[in-house]
């Protein structure tokens, strides 16, 4: 069996990228049915804030879990979880089938990941971890549960716990990790979540159109920085000080400075490097992305608590791979919103910091095809000095274009269309939209956190000393400071609107 990209529609039903678009659009369409009074997404289960002693004294599942919509309150919480499991297993299982995954192994792995995700999500909502000592929508869980101490991390603790459980499995229970890896698909899950985030972007545009357009344009500028500034610097350092050959330096530079694994594979393809180069580099990128994801959100939160959008955009330029970037953005969002609420008793609306991180990253993703195309031409003419009549097919740009971005933009455009042409239907559209971009999206994020942990194996860094050093220098000395400076220039002073 082989996978060849010959036609423009090749891979439309067989790649994770396309399936992120299909799955995201399907959820989006289900949410839109609320326009016609059909609210068919509210059954999805979500965790409630709970407190340990209170639960032990009088146990009830309803203290831990509820349906997202009150219309489905008649469902027992465990039935809501079961429905959630069945729907997600069937839909992602269909995707797994068309992606030529081993469906039996996928369903087994997904079932385990589903259970562990929910365990993390529920534990993460224990009041001592999540509750913030401030009033949110008229409720202060710190006071309701009479807490004497608390970490006050909001939803961030759930994310970190899922990541930790995944990492423990990926590094200490490797046989078990191998058994569930068929379903550990962080890029698929996160790209689906990003499509759903298009709804959030639509709602953001309604609330603050100027702010959202500015965010999108600044993201485009950031993409130019990644390609035209980061890449040449890292390439030069790699060649000059680390004596890497041209191919390795180019592939590594793209991985470190552009968008991680996807960029390293695209670049290696553009310069026709042997596939073992991007495969080796990818391992390095995945493990480093984990460090970035764990270290940067708390660092940015504490160093610049009053620059939320700057921090989000800087994250988008610094953290590599879509999964790790979105995950880091989600943690940053939770930490910054919680910290601000705790300190100022004012709640920023959730999702804006995350959107800043994702919009910046998406612009970088979008240009990878064009970048690779240009690089391929330069490589043939100036590096290989070939005078052959080799053409770089234009279709290469399309094959490397991230298709989930099309779905993300489509969702955004549909919301813009409703805003400008059918404003009367917006309140009804938002009923389903809020559920899909809320609980559905957060659940996909939780799956991503656990899956990233499962596929990250730190022991694979053995024997990569020189490359590790170059990556560390590239990231912390070159990329992170410049990214922060650029993000500051474009976004300083921008704040998310207040939550109501």
């Amino acid at each position: 069996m082989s996978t060849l990209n010959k036609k423009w529609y090749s891979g439309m039903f067989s790649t994770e990228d396309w399936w992120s678009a299909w799955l995201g659009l399907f959820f989006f369409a289900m949410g839109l049915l609320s326009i016609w009074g059909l609210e068919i997404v509210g059954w999805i289960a979500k965790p409630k804030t709970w407190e340990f002693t209170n639960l032990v004294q009088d146990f009830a599942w309803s203290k831990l879990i509820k349906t997202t919509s009150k219309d489905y309150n008649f469902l027992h919480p465990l039935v809501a979880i079961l429905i959630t499991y069945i729907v997600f297993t069937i839909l992602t299982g269909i995707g797994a089938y068309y992606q030529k995954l081993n469906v039996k192994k996928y369903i087994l792995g997904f079932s385990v990941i589903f259970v562990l995700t929910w365990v993390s999500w529920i534990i993460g909502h224990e009041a001592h971890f999540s509750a913030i000592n401030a009033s949110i929508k008229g409720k202060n869980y710190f006071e309701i549960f009479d807490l004497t101490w608390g970490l006050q991390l909001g939803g961030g603790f759930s994310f970190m716990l899922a990541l930790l459980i995944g990492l423990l499995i990926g590094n200490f229970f490797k046989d078990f990790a191998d058994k569930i890896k068929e379903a550990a698909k962080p890029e698929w899950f996160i790209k689906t979540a990003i499509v759903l985030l298009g709804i959030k972007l639509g709602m953001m545009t309604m609330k603050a159109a100027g702010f959202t357009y500015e965010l999108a344009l600044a993201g485009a500028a950031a993409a130019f920085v990644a390609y035209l500034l980061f890449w040449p610097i890292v390439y030069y350092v790699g060649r000059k000080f680390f004596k890497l050959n041209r191919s390795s330096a180019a592939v590594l530079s793209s991985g470190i400075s552009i968008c991680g694994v996807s960029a390293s594979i695209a670049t290696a393809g553009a310069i026709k490097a042997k596939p073992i180069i991007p495969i080796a580099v990818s391992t390095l990128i995945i493990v480093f992305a984990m460090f970035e994801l764990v270290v940067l959100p708390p660092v940015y939160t504490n160093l610049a608590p009053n620059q939320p959008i700057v921090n989000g955009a800087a994250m988008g330029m610094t953290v590599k791979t879509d999964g790790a970037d979105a995950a880091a953005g989600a943690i940053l969002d939770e930490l910054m919103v919680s910290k601000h609420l705790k300190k100022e008793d004012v709640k920023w609306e959730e999702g804006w910091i995350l959107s800043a991180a994702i919009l910046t990253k998406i612009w970088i993703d979008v240009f990878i095809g064009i970048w690779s195309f240009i690089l391929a031409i330069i490589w043939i003419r100036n590096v290989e000095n070939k005078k052959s009549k080799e053409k770089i097919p234009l279709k290469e740009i399309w094959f490397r274009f991230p298709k989930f971005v099309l779905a993300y933009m489509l969702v955004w455009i549909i919301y813009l269309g409703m805003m400008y042409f059918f404003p009367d239907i917006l309140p009804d559209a938002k009923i389903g939209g809020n559920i899909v971009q809320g609980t559905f999206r957060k659940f996909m994020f939780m799956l991503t956190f656990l899956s990233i942990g499962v596929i990250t194996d730190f022991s694979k860094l053995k024997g990569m000393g020189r490359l590790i050093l170059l990556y560390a220098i590239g990231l912390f000395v070159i990329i992170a400071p410049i990214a922060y400076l650029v993000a500051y220039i474009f976004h300083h002073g921008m704040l998310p609107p207040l939550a109501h």
Partner: protein
Amino acid sequence: MQLDFTLSFTDRQWVCFNDSLKITANSLDEIDEAIKNHIHHNYDKGNFRIKMYFDFDRFPRWHRQYMPHYFNRDFTFNIN
């Protein structure tokens, strides 16, 4: 005339094949030369267009979620 090939990579070597030909080489340049030789010995004079499609199944499964394409090649040459 156009000839289509599947391009693959195993055991540190490039493999280029179609129904009538299979070439294994250390570099793509060697592959190109072998194809030219093959055409020279088996076809009449003329312009030839070569298309190669990289088989992405050669990448480890977990890599494919990040980028579903490696590269395709398209070049022409003339045999007098």
